[in-house]
């Protein structure tokens, strides 16, 4: 009876709507950064108020940049909406790809510090400089989490502010200044205890560490993410927001037309922008997403602290911006130690093993796209390959030299090209081998950031099962237990088991079922 009533109701609802949202002609198609997902309720109201549907399709920052400057974005979208256009606009020719841009809201990248740490450092009463923050990091009185600058705008913004401050520069950074700041940056990043490819996941991971009794000092993130985290009420006490006196980089979320969009799309854009900038809409944006308003009629409320902020000049040359990222990856960050646990069982034959090889070859330098260049194995990185079928194969470890990486990358490519699929799936036995290697590496080189990637296209069919792995994992010493597993869903992956492995170890799953290489690149932000 109930089912029938529901069916009738659904039919009635379906009958009411003139068309499904997918073919609503009054749609502005927008390629967007995933952090804009929290704006959906506002966009739903925009649709109700104006009839214009703003449909966001999410992608990563670098992928977005690449799609715009290659001209590919214009084929499927009318507009783009990311946290900032600054890096994008450094690419030659982009001015021909984008049209009018309108800022919708803003959020500076600042620090959220746990109260006891802020108090002991005096940052709760006096705003520090980046140099003072770097000093505390060097002394390990301040440890922190920050996103990877090559994967996430908040990490990149922090890197720009910090490098500008440490170099003493009062104008846009130059390459010699980037190189000159490397020794200090290396000391600063030695205190980084948590990394992530996205600002939202970083906040979640930080919260887990605090609640799990293994807290770190703070995190660098958008003011909006930090205020949202405080508003959740899940931390024992709210974070102190710390605004460095010598500069921040502020995300300004410009909704930006793409060249070649239709006249109708431009009309929808104008409608959307006019709506989003109304004072009565700017206020709920501020109250619900904790981003600052951009129209003078709406004043920020008391939660937005900091007093006067100093906006750091953003680099004007692509070479400088890329040198910042390159230097972070190859010189100043804690070197990564990356263990790949990869399924070569019989079910991987054909397209699947080809996709896996191509993803790994991409990371070994074959992918020359923008995102590919930044996600290749970095200088000083240690890469361990643990392939498995009926049992784990002998692990192979490579260390990529900082100065001449090519010969080692070539060795990795030779190994990958030899892979053949066949046999059963001893998934957890292979994961145990990976953790044994991780334990050894964590002991021998605690300065490294050690992570495990797990790819399997199906259920485990031989060796240990999940319960046995869980017991093994719980017996590991705490520093080894801190090594996260990032399972990649692929083929007929056991989704719930993979999710459990991720949550048990503090990792997260990635979906490689539609594009494995993309998932492998995305994981690079977490390694």
């Amino acid at each position, binding site marked *: 009876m109930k089912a029938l009533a529901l069916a009738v109701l659904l039919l009635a609802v379906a009958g009411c709507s003139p068309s499904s949202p997918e073919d609503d002609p009054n749609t502005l198609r927008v390629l967007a950064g995933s952090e804009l997902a929290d704006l959906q309720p506002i966009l739903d109201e925009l649709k109700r108020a104006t009839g214009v549907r703003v449909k966001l399709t999410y992608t990563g920052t670098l992928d977005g940049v690449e799609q715009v400057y290659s001209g590919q974005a214009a084929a499927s979208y009318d507009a783009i909406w990311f946290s900032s256009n600054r890096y994008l606009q450094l690419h030659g020719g982009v001015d021909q790809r984008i049209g009018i841009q309108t800022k919708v809201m803003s959020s500076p990248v600042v620090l959220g510090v746990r109260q006891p740490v802020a108090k002991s450092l005096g940052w709760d009463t006096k705003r520090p400089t980046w140099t003072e923050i770097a000093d505390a990091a060097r002394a390990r009185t301040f440890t922190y989490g920050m996103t990877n600058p090559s994967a996430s705008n908040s990490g990149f913004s922090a890197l720009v502010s910090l490098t500008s401050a440490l170099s003493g520069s009062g*104008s846009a950074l130059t390459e010699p200044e980037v190189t000159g700041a490397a020794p200090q940056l290396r000391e600063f990043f030695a205190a980084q205890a948590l990394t992530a490819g996205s600002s939202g996941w970083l906040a979640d991971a930080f919260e887990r560490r605090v609640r799990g009794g293994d807290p770190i000092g703070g995190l660098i993130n958008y003011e909006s993410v930090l205020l949202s985290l405080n508003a959740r009420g899940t931390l024992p006490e709210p974070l102190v927001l710390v605004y460095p006196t010598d500069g921040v980089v502020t995300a300004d979320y410009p909704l930006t037309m793409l060249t070649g969009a239709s006249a109708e799309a431009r009309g929808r854009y104008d409608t959307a922008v006019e709506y989003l900038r109304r004072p009565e809409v700017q206020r709920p944006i501020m109250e619900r997403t904790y981003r600052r308003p951009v*129209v003078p009629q709406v004043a920020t409320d008391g939660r937005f602290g900091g007093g006067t902020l100093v906006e750091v*000049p953003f680099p004007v040359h692509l070479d400088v911006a890329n040198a910042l990222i390159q230097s972070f990856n190859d010189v100043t960050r804690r070197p990564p130690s990356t263990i790949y646990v990869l399924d070569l069982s019989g079910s991987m034959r054909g397209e699947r093993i080809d996709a896996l090889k191509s993803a790994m070859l991409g990371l070994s330098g074959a992918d020359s796209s923008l995102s590919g260049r930044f996600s290749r194995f970095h200088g000083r990185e240690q890469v361990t390959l643990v392939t498995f079928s009926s049992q784990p194969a002998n692990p192979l470890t490579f260390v990529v030299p900082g100065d001449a990486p090519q010969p080692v990358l070539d060795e990795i490519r030779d190994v990958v090209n030899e892979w053949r699929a066949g046999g059963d799936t001893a998934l957890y036995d292979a994961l145990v081998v990976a953790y044994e290697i991780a334990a050894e590496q964590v002991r021998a080189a605690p300065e490294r950031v050690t992570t495990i990637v797990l790819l399997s296209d199906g259920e485990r069919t031989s060796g240990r099962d999940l319960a046995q792995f869980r017991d093994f994992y719980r017996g590991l010493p705490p520093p080894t237990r801190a090594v996260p597993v990032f399972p990649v869903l692929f083929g007929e992956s056991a989704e719930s088991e993979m999710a459990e492995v991720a949550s048990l170890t503090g990792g997260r799953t990635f979906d490689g079922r539609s594009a494995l290489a993309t998932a492998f690149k995305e994981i690079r932000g977490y390694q």
Partner: protein
Amino acid sequence: MAVRRVFSVVLAAVLVVGVIVAIVVGRERGSGQSLETVRGVVGSEKAPFFADPDVVAAFAAHGLRVTVDPAGSRQISEIDLAGYDFAFPSSFPLAERVQRKQGVTTAYAPFYSPMAIASFAPVMQLLSRASIAERMPDGHWVVDVEAYLAAARKNLRWDQIPGNTAYPARRNVLVTTTHPRDSNSAAMYASVVSYVANGNAIVRDIGGVPKVLDEVSALFLGQGYLENSTEGPFESYLANGLSYSPLVWVYEAQFLGRQFRRDGSIRDGMVLAYPSPTVLSKHTLVPLGDDGDRVGRLLTQDPELLRLAARHGFRTADANALANFAAGAGVDPPPPLVDVVDPPSYQVLETMLDAISRRYQQ
């Protein structure tokens, strides 16, 4: 690029026409009078003026319905002007270029606006201690461009000015402008600073550009990332104040127009300073036919239109109009301008701006 420009002009036209038609249709019903449509392409900063219902009514009283397509002033000199009755860029060099291209000798300069610096009283006090700014007896602030250039040459940072509590930033003392590639206001900035860098003389020919190029370029590139339209930085100044920038290059009309609106966006402590020398953005209308000529004449002579121009913050031949609105809004009257220089010729300015823009690609 050209395609995008024309395209966006047309789109904007559709929108503006829609608004105007709605207004005019409403009025025509009352008067029963038919209006002649005149089409113009205008610098985007003047679009709000033409969209003002009182301006529409003032033209209608003379039997005209004026529809405008907003465009970047630097674009107006490049796009195809067929089908337009007038072009109305925001500077004299750009109008000159249109005149040459169209073989027109007449031009109307109904209103103008000096370039100015939106800032804050404590920042100006700070700069006066560094002998870069000075407060005039009538209360308004003047920035000495020569002293400013000398400071920029030495990479003077805000935190190096003694006794600085207002804005102790580790950031060079630089005025925030738009990108030289796109906007007229940035071209006006280049005009002022190149004059001073050239030993207080207008750069007369292309051969004189290299002599000032390094110094002028540094004033743009040192700022870091720049926005494209003059409206962007001014809005950020209004919304974020000192946290955006202590010094923002604007048209005087932008600031005054906001003050006259009394919408609370100009807050306590916000001041408009005048560079010395400054340059005038002479909004110059080039008629492309008799109808365009009528618009030019009306804008120059019709008392109601002159009054409305003043309400939007523009200076006109009637010096009292702006002062009256200032008095009505309870703000200080805009000062008389004493130290005004001419911008270089179109060709020299374009050469300079192109050369600066190229340095962003190196």
